[in-house]
């Protein structure tokens, strides 16, 4: 390339105050290959751009360097201008003589010399630039939603309502997630089930939604617009096509004393069961671990009583493959099981709180089930130990959360609000009862949240004690809570009938394994990482994968639903085009020289490098080389720095371009 144009911007006075722009232009004219150089007050202005376009035409420029502000500011502007002038946009480079020069130096001579050097470097670079064509990849307009809680349901419905196919995968036998377990929701105290179950029914009835419950993601291949997902449908032992959901099997099942997980083990369920009466789909599943038929072969009652003959003991796990273009991850959360002290983890547990040993020390979700009208007690609040109505209940906030020394330093965000809600629900059901709350701070940002919290104290007479709990122990039929009241500066002991712990919110078990399958990043707690905390809060760094709900960090229902709709909007933006256009800064393999050591594959964080077989005309395998899938490559270039023979090169940042810059030193 021997016809290069250099355009030097004064940026008003921002550059020209410290840099002698005319002198830089004069120096540029002396550089080999520069056929045109000029300076102008505002290159980015309309007349500035016109000047550039004219010069490209008049001087038949083959490459241009705009010496102005940071490329982060105006690279796009000038590349567009170059394109409008008929030049490939990637033949335009910016020399940053403002942020990196005029704004940071005060000596005019030095700054001018540096600006000249910067221009020279970019002139040499642009000489080695190649025309690049944006990469287009076809888009499969079908979305995968992982997780059937409120986040997954919301995203699925939004996308499906927009007319796109959705595949919803849920690990449990029913969708609904945690929201289906809740009693009433803050700050309006409307019934969770009442708002949740219709959404669940919408999902199952939606013609655009394919629902896979009792299923897990086995593997993920492909890239944005073109994912291939293998889903493992676990054996339900009930043929979904035949089952009418009549429920006879469940009634007749002789195994009735299996703790009900949905009710936090407060009640029981049979071996063939639906997790809760409003489950979607309303098809039972056989718990093979507890079913007598599967344990010793001696039963088979459910099969005998099933009219449609839906019970199938022979059913096997099944792998199915779905093609999708985008993925929304909405795997939700679990509550910190404080009795747990996982090996090798920083999590230390709270043995001193007696959770798991003292029956009347429960967590928040168990309290939700006690308070729920559809729960095991029909909404009556009783003590798990003896069924008596508790008259003094102590709620403890921040159990696990914000406790660096215990291994978790983040705030679980929803506990302040749901504890306030719990005190209200309790007061509404046990009028003569007294609720105490141990708290560190009350965090109530959110519409009507603070009002709600104040109502708990002022109207519902909950006693809030600012302080930490040090120990909880059984004393007769009471549970003694020892803590401090730092407002008064005294130690407090409360003999309670029931203790409710607001334990921390953690990502679901297996969140890390799923992230590895998806190729997305996660933090040290296994919460998934968004691409940018502020500007890309629902996108993963891996293109085509979006986040919704508590899997990304603790959040309440309104936030979860908002994020789910946001993720759905992102998916729909992606689906609005048939072809996906990407900046062509991707790595390419020189197949002639690649020897297939696959070091590039080992260092690629995106799984963009594949093995490619080179065959002769007879179809005999000659050798295996690396292949970079341009749809997946994100353009970091780590592969090229790793490749010993540089047989993989990153377009836009080739060795030739870099070396050319260094030659100017």
């Amino acid at each position, binding site marked *: 390339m021997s016809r290069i144009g250099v355009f030097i911007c004064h940026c008003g006075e921002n550059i020209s105050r410290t840099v002698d722009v005319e002198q830089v232009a004069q120096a540029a004219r002396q550089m080999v290959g520069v056929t045109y150089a000029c300076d102008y007050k505002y290159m980015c202005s309309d007349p500035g751009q016109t000047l550039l376009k004219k010069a490209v035409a008049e001087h038949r420029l083959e490459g241009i360097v705009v010496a102005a502000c940071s490329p982060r500011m105006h690279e796009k502007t000038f590349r567009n201008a170059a394109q409008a002038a008929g030049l490939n946009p990637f033949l335009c480079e910016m020399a940053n003589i403002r942020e990196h020069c005029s704004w940071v130096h005060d000596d005019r001579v030095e700054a001018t010399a540096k600006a000249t050097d910067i221009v020279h470097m970019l002139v040499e670079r642009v000489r080695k630039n190649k025309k690049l064509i944006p990469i287009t990849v076809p888009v499969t307009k079908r979305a995968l939603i992982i997780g059937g809680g409120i986040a997954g349901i919301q995203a699925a419905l939004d996308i499906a309502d927009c007319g796109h196919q959705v595949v919803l995968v849920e690990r449990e036998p029913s969708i609904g997630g945690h929201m289906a377990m809740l009693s009433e929701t803050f700050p309006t105290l409307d019934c969770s089930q009442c708002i949740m179950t219709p959404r669940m029914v919408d999902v199952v009835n939606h013609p655009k939604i394919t629902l896979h419950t009792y299923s897990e993601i086995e593997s993920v291949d492909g890239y944005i617009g073109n994912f291939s997902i293998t889903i493992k449908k676990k054996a339900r032992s009930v043929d979904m096509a035949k089952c009418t959901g009549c429920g006879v099997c469940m009634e007749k099942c002789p195994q009735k004393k299996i703790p009900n997980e949905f009710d936090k083990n407060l009640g029981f369920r049979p071996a063939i069961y639906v997790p809760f009466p409003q489950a979607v789909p309303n098809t039972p599943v056989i718990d093979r671990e507890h079913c007598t038929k599967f344990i010793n072969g001696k039963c088979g009652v459910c099969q005998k009583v099933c009219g449609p003959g839906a019970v199938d003991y022979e059913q096997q796990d099944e792998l199915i493959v779905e093609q999708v273009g985008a993925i929304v991850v909405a795997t939700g959360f679990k509550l910190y099981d404080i009795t747990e002290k996982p090996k090798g983890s920083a999590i230390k547990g709270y043995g001193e709180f007696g959770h798991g040993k003292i029956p009347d020390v429960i967590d928040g979700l168990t309290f939700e089930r006690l308070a729920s009208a559809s729960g095991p007690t029909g909404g009556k609040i009783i003590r798990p130990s003896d069924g008596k109505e508790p008259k003094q209940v102590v709620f403890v906030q921040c159990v696990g959360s914000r406790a660096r020394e215990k291994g978790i330093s983040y705030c679980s965000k929803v506990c302040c609000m749901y504890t306030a809600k719990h005190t209200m629900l309790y007061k509404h059901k046990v009028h003569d009862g007294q609720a105490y709350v141990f708290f560190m701070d009350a965090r109530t940002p959110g519409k009507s949240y603070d009002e709600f919290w104040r109502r708990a104290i002022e109207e519902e007479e909950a006693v809030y004690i600012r302080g930490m709990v040090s120990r909880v122990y059984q004393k007769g039929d009471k549970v003694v809570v020892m803590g401090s009241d730092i407002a008064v500066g005294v130690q407090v002991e409360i003999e309670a009938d029931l203790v409710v712990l607001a334990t921390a919110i953690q990502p679901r078990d297996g969140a890390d394994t799923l992230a590895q399958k998806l190729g997305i990043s996660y933090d040290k707690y296994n919460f998934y990482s968004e691409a940018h905390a502020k500007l890309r809060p629902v996108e993963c760094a891996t293109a085509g994968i979006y986040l919704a709900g508590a899997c990304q960090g603790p959040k309440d229902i309104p936030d979860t639903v908002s994020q789910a709709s946001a993720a759905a909007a992102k998916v729909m933006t992606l689906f609005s085009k048939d072809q996906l256009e990407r900046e062509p800064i991707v790595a390419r393999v020189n197949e*002639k*020289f*690649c*020897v*297939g*050591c*696959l*070091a590039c594959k*080992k*260092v690629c964080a995106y799984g963009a490098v594949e093995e490619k077989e080179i065959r002769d005309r007879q179809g005999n395998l000659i*050798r*295996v080389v690396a292949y970079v899938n341009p749809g997946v490559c994100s353009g970091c270039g780590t592969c090229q720095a*790793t490749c*010993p*023979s*540089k*047989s993989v090169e990153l377009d836009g940042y080739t*060795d*030739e371009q870099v*070396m*050319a810059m260094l030659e100017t030193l």
Partner: protein
Amino acid sequence: MKSTGKPEPTVTIDTSGYAVATEEIRSEAKRLLLEKIVDAVVGYQSGRRKGSAVPVIITDPAQAEQLVFSPACVNNLSIYLTKAKKEIRAKGKLAVVAKGCDLRALAGLMGESQFKREEVVIIGVTCAGVHSAGVQPNEPLTSATIAKKCRECSVHIPEGADLIVGKLPLLPDLTPTEKELLEKLDAMTPGERWEYWKEQFTRCIRCLACRQVCPFCYCEQCLCDRGRPQAVDTSPRPSGNMGWHIVRAMHLAGRCSGCAECERVCPMDIPLNLLNRKMAQELKELYQYEAGLTPQEKGPLTSYDEKDDQSFIK
């Protein structure tokens, strides 16, 4: 530069096991070829010079009688299995005679997808040591004629080979001369080291024997042969030589199996293995990485740990 230690008395090393190994290699090679388990065997045969041994590729069971193992079997035969030697690979399935140090190279090559374990039959040879460069091949193996790498060998027995032949004699304690040299260099100032290496590299004539015998220099197109852009000047003169040897050491870091062939073949006596050893030592200290006898999925420079040392980064 010589070893700093006191001159050690010359000790003869018992190589009676080599005759046993020769017999076993012959019968195994013959069997493999007769039973058509492999199409060719890469081994050593005697050369014209008395006591010499040179690499050979045999395809006929009758040729198996030519195979030998002796202290003159200095070559690392794993290079014949790399993609750089397409004509050898084209012969079909290969068996290869490998000392412990050679097996490390084979393991490294497998880790770099150059071939699969099942594609190669490895005839491992128990080895007490081989000759140093420049030793007349018919000389006995002694503490004076043994190669530097063998003085510090930790892989006398090639564990993991398909068959291990020969037997290990009682080995004398030998001073680790290379280690001592490395320590001596480490103790120098950077300026002194620069002068040392400058002198060494200035001698380099860029015959590229170091590259060509290296099992890991199997690139189709060496970066240092490239003209556009020219990463390293190709002319044999001080600046290009310095660049070449730095780039080579860096490209081998975390891959080199320590066979020291580069140093053995250097006609200009440049102690190239010092660079490789230094890199290996650093990789061990930094990332607990060592070249081993079994393939590793990723090397130290194709993997990372979030907790890696970064004390050098501000």
